[in-house]
C-alpha cells in the first residue's frame, strides 16, 4: 500500500476553470494505467496557482494479468510446437493442450507482470496532466510546445515521499511546493505527503476550496446580499482570502440600486451590503488575497476605485438622460446586431412587428408591447450600457421609468432579456414575456436564415439559451402560442424540437420515450405538450397502457406493410359481428369521450380501456382477408384507430416490456 501526491504549480488559472480542470484530472487519472493501482482519491482541490491530487492506499503494483495464447494444432508437428513454445518463452511440456472442432491445440499461458507503482506513475502522470481539458489553452514554451491553461512552473510528485521522476513542459518533478506569492516563503518548500497541507497553510495557502469558502463566509457579515456565483469566483481567485469592508458616500445611493450593485459585483467583485429593511447600505465587502489590512491601505484603495466607478456611473446616468430613449431609436442604425444581419435598428423594426403579432395572439396590450419593443434596444446607445454591458435591458427599463414612459413599458424593457438561464425567473408581465419571446425568436429566425446554426459546443450567439428561454416562458406562463406558426425553417423547427425534448426530459423529468411519443404527435403549444407528457406519465403505470402501446406499434407496422398511407372511415356494413364489430363500437365510444375536451389523463385512460377489444381483434381476426374489400375495410378500421388516438402522443414510441414491435 502506498500514497501519491501530485501538485501542478501554475501561473494564475482563471477562477471558473479550476473545478472543471480538477474533474478532468480525476478522470484522466482514473482512466489511465494509474487507475489500475486502485486506492482512494482523498484530496482533489485547487487554487489559482495549483491543482492538487492525493491518492491513499495505492497498490504497490498493478495486478499481474494472465493471457492465454493460442498456438499450433498438435497435428502440425513437433517443430511447430517447439517454435511456438520458444516464442512464448516456455517449453512444449509446459504448454496446455485443449481440443476444439479441428483437433488438439497447444496453448501457452503468459503472465504479464504488472508494473510497480512508482514506474507507472512516472510514465503515466505527464500524460494524465497534459490531457487536462481546458476551455481555452496557450503555448508558452514555443511554437508546437505543450498547450495548457497557463504556464506550468513547478511539479510536486511524491510516491511514499519519494519523488516520482518525470518531466513535463520542461519542468522536472520534485519534492517542493511554493507558498503564497507575497506572504509565503520566497524559496521552494520541501514537503512530505503528510506535511503538505500544513506547510502550505504556514505559507498562507489554503489548498481546499471549502475551507477558503468558509473563511470568506465567516469574514463577511450576515448583512451582505447573498451571491453564490460571486462567492465561487472569489474562492477560486484567492489562495488566502480575507474579506474587508469598505464604504462609499451615501449620496451615490440616489442612483438606482441595480447600477450600484452591477458596478460592485461585475466590475469589482464586491458584495453589496444591505440594511435591515433590505435596502442598499453605503458599504461593500471586498475579498482580498492577503492576510489583513492593518493600515487600511487596501480598503482606501478599493474605496477610491469604487468612487471613480460610481462617478462614471453617475455621470452616465445624468448624461444619458439628456437624450431620452425615444430619441435614440434612429441611433440604433449605428449599432451592429450581427455583421450580416445589419443593425439593431433593423432588428428593432422586426421585433416591433413580431411582438405586435404575438401580443394580439396572446392577449397582451398591443400598444404597450409595441412601445416597449421599439425602445427595448435603445439603451445600447447609452454611455451607461456601453460601459456596463451587464445592464442591458435593466438600464433601458430604468431610463424608461425615469423618462415617464408608462410603467408597463418600462417593466417590459427591464425584463426582456430574462430568463438568462434555466434558473432565472421569467419576465413579470405579459407584455414583458411577449417582448422577450419576440426578441429571442427574431434572433433565432435571422441567425438560422443565414446559416448561423449552433454545432456541438459552438454556439456563439447563445441560440440554445434563446430557444430555451422561449420554451421556459411559454411553459411556465402557460401561454397558448403555436410556435410552429412563427417558424419557417425546418432546421429551426428541428432545433426547437430538440430544445423542447431537453426541457421536457431534463427540466420536467419525463422519460425519454414519453417525450418522444408526445413530440411525434402534432406539435401544438408548449403547455399542451407538457400536459400530454403528464397524461402519458400518469397513465403509463396502469396495466392496460403498455400492452396497448405495443398494439399501436403493431398497427403501425401492419399499415406500413400494406402501404396504407391514408384511408376513409370503415364501412360498418362490412364489419363482421364479434371482435371486429366490438372493436369498432369501442372505437366509436372512446372517440365520443375524447372529443369532449376532457383532460389528457381522462382521455388517455379511456383510450387505454380499448385494450381488451384490440387484443381480441388481433387474437381472432386475420387482417389479410382473401376478400380485398374486407381487407381494405379492416385496414381502414385500424387506420382510424391509429390516427384518431395518436394526436395526443404517438404510442408506438413507448418502449414496452414485451417488445411488441413485431407485427
Amino acid at each position: 500500500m502506498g500514497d501519491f501526491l501530485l501538485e501542478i504549480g501554475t501561473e494564475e488559472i482563471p477562477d471558473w476553470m479550476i473545478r472543471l480542470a480538477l474533474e478532468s484530472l480525476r478522470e484522466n487519472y482514473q482512466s489511465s494505467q494509474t487507475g489500475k493501482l486502485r486506492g482512494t482519491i482523498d484530496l482533489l482541490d485547487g487554487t489559482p496557482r495549483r491543482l492538487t491530487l492525493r491518492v491513499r492506499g495505492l497498490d504497490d503494483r498493478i495486478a499481474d494479468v494472465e493471457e492465454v495464447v493460442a498456438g499450433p494444432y498438435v497435428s502440425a508437428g513437433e517443430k511447430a510446437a517447439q517454435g511456438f513454445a520458444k516464442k512464448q518463452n516456455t517449453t512444449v511440456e509446459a504448454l496446455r493442450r485443449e481440443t476444439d472442432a479441428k483437433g488438439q491445440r497447444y496453448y501457452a499461458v503468459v503472465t504479464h507482470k504488472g508494473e510497480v507503482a512508482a514506474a507507472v506513475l512516472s510514465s503515466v502522470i505527464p500524460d494524465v496532466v497534459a490531457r487536462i481539458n481546458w476551455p481555452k489553452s496557450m503555448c508558452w514554451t514555443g511554437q508546437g510546445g505543450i498547450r495548457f491553461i497557463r504556464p506550468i512552473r513547478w511539479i510536486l510528485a511524491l510516491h511514499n515521499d519519494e519523488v516520482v521522476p518525470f518531466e513535463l513542459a520542461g519542468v522536472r518533478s520534485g519534492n517542493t511546493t511554493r507558498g503564497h506569492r507575497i506572504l509565503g516563503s520566497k524559496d521552494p518548500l520541501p514537503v512530505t505527503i503528510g506535511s503538505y497541507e500544513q506547510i502550505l497553510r504556514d505559507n498562507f495557502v489554503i489548498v481546499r476550496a471549502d475551507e477558503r469558502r468558509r473563511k470568506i463566509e465567516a469574514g463577511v457579515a450576515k448583512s451582505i446580499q447573498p451571491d453564490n456565483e460571486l462567492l465561487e469566483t472569489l474562492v477560486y481567485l484567492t489562495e488566502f482570502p480575507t474579506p474587508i469592508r469598505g464604504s462609499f458616500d451615501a449620496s451615490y445611493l440616489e442612483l438606482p440600486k441595480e447600477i450600484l450593485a452591477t458596478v460592485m459585483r461585475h466590475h469589482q467583485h464586491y458584495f453589496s451590503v444591505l440594511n435591515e429593511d433590505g435596502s442598499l447600505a453605503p458599504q461593500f465587502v471586498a475579498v482580498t488575497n492577503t492576510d489583513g489590512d492593518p493600515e487600511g491601505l487596501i480598503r482606501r484603495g478599493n474605496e477610491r476605485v469604487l468612487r471613480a466607478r460610481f462617478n462614471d456611473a453617475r455621470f452616465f446616468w445624468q448624461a444619458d438622460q439628456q437624450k431620452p430613449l425615444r430619441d435614440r431609436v434612429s441611433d440604433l442604425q449605428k449599432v451592429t446586431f450581427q455583421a450580416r444581419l445589419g443593425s439593431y435598428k433593423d432588428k428593432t423594426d422586426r421585433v416591433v412587428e413580431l411582438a405586435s403579432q404575438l401580443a394580439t395572439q396572446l392577449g397582451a396590450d398591443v400598444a404597450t408591447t409595441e412601445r416597449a419593443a421599439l425602445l427595448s434596444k435603445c439603451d445600447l446607445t447609452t454611455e451607461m450600457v456601453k460601459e456596463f454591458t451587464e445592464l442591458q435591458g435593466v438600464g433601458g427599463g430604468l431610463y424608461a421609468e425615469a423618462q415617464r414612459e408608462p410603467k408597463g413599458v418600462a417593466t417590459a424593457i427591464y425584463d426582456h432579456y430574462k430568463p438568462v438561464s434555466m434558473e432565472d425567473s421569467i419576465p413579470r408581465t405579459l407584455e414583458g414575456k411577449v417582448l422577450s419571446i419576440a426578441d429571442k425568436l427574431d434572433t433565432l429566425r435571422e441567425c438560422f436564415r443565414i446559416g448561423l446554426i449552433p454545432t456541438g459546443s459552438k454556439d456563439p450567439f447563445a441560440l440554445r439559451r434563446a430557444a430555451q428561454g422561449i420554451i421556459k416562458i411559454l411553459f411556465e406562463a402557460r401561454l397558448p402560442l403555436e410556435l410552429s406558426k412563427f417558424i419557417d425553417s425546418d432546421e429551426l423547427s428541428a432545433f426547437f424540437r430538440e430544445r423542447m425534448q431537453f426541457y421536457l426530459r431534463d427540466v420536467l423529468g419525463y422519460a425519454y420515450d414519453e417525450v418522444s411519443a408526445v413530440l411525434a404527435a402534432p406539435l401544438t403549444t408548449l403547455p399542451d405538450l407538457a400536459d400530454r407528457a403528464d397524461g402519458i406519465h400518469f397513465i403509463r403505470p396502469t396495466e392496460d397502457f403498455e400492452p396497448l402501446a405495443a398494439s399501436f406499434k403493431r398497427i403501425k407496422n401492419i399499415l406500413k406493410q400494406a402501404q396504407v398511407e391514408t384511408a376513409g372511415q370503415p364501412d360498418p356494413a362490412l364489419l363482421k359481428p364479434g371482435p371486429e364489430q366490438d372493436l369498432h363500437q369501442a372505437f366509436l365510444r372512446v372517440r365520443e369521450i375524447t372529443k369532449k375536451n376532457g383532460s389528457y389523463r381522462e382521455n388517455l385512460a379511456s383510450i387505454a380501456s380499448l385494450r381488451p377489444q384490440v387484443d381480441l381483434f388481433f387474437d381472432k381476426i386475420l387482417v389479410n382477408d382473401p376478400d380485398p374489400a374486407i381487407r381494405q375495410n379492416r385496414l381502414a378500421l385500424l387506420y382510424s384507430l391509429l390516427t384518431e388516438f395518436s394526436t395526443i402522443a404517438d404510442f408506438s414510441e413507448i418502449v414496452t416490456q414485451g417488445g411488441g414491435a413485431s407485427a
Partner: protein
Amino acid sequence: MDSFQDTIVKLKRYWADRGAIIQEPYDLEVGAGTMAPETFLRVLGPKPYKVAYVQPSRRPADGRYGQNPNRLYKHQQLQVILKPTPDDVIDQYLGSLEAIGIDLRKHDIKFEEDNWESPTLGAWGIGWQVMLDGLEITQFTYFQQCGGMDLDLVPAEITYGLERIVAFLQNVESVYEIQWAPGFKYADVRSAEEQQFSIYNFELADVAALWREFELHEREGQRLLELFRASTDKERFPVLATYDQVLKCSHLFNLLDARGAISVTERVGIIARVRKLAVGVAQAWCEQHNPRESAAA
C-alpha cells in the same frame, strides 16, 4: 513622492537592468504600445528580443475634452516585451512594482483572466489584468498570434497604464491632478491637447478627407506589398515603411469611428481591409528576416 516622470524613469531603469533595450516611442499615431513595430514586428520570428518603451497611445473615441478625471484621448503606456518569456516573468513583474514604491506586503494583488485580441492586427494573446487593491494597473499577455501568424517564441507583453498607476501612487482622484514634474501637474502638460483633439476628433475632422487619406494609405500599402512579392532583393525592401501604412490606416479608421462616420455594414469590412495589410506585412517581415523558414512554411 515620485512624480510621473520619476516613476517612468524608475520603470525604465528596472527593465534596463534586466537586459531590455530602452526604446523611444514610435513616431506615428498608434492606439496601443502593441502596434509600435517594436512589438508588432519584433515578436515575429525566432529571434529573442527584450525591449521597453513608453508609447503615447491615441484613442480618439475615448476623448472627453479634458473633463473626465479618468478618461483620456491619449494616454501613456509603458510597454515591455520579453521574448522568449523568462520562467520567473511574474516575479520580475512584481519586482517592478516594488521598484516604483509599492509595498506588496501591504496591498492586495490579483491576476484576473483577461485575454487580448486585436482584429485589425490579426493578433491575440492569453493573459490577465493585474489588479492592485481593485484597480487594474497592468495588462499582462502571452502573445500567441500576431499578423495571423503563430509565434515561434512566445513573448510576454507587460503593459503598464501609467496614468492609473501614478494616480494610485500619488493618491489623487483625477489624472489631471498627477504631479508630472515638480511644479507641473498633468493638467499643465496635457489639458489643452486633450481638449483640442477632442474638438477635432469629434467635431471638426473632415470626414471626406479622412476617407481619402485612408484609401491613399491603403493603396500605398497594397502597392508596396505587391512590389515586395515581385522583388528580387527582399533584404533591402522597405517593409517597415509598408507597416507605417497599416498604422496610418488604423488611426484613420479610429478617427472616422470617433466621428461616427462608419456604418455598421462598413465596419467589419474595413477592419478586414486593415487586417489584410497587417497580415501581409507580418508575412513579408518574416520572409525578409528568415527567408528559408518562411518559404518552407
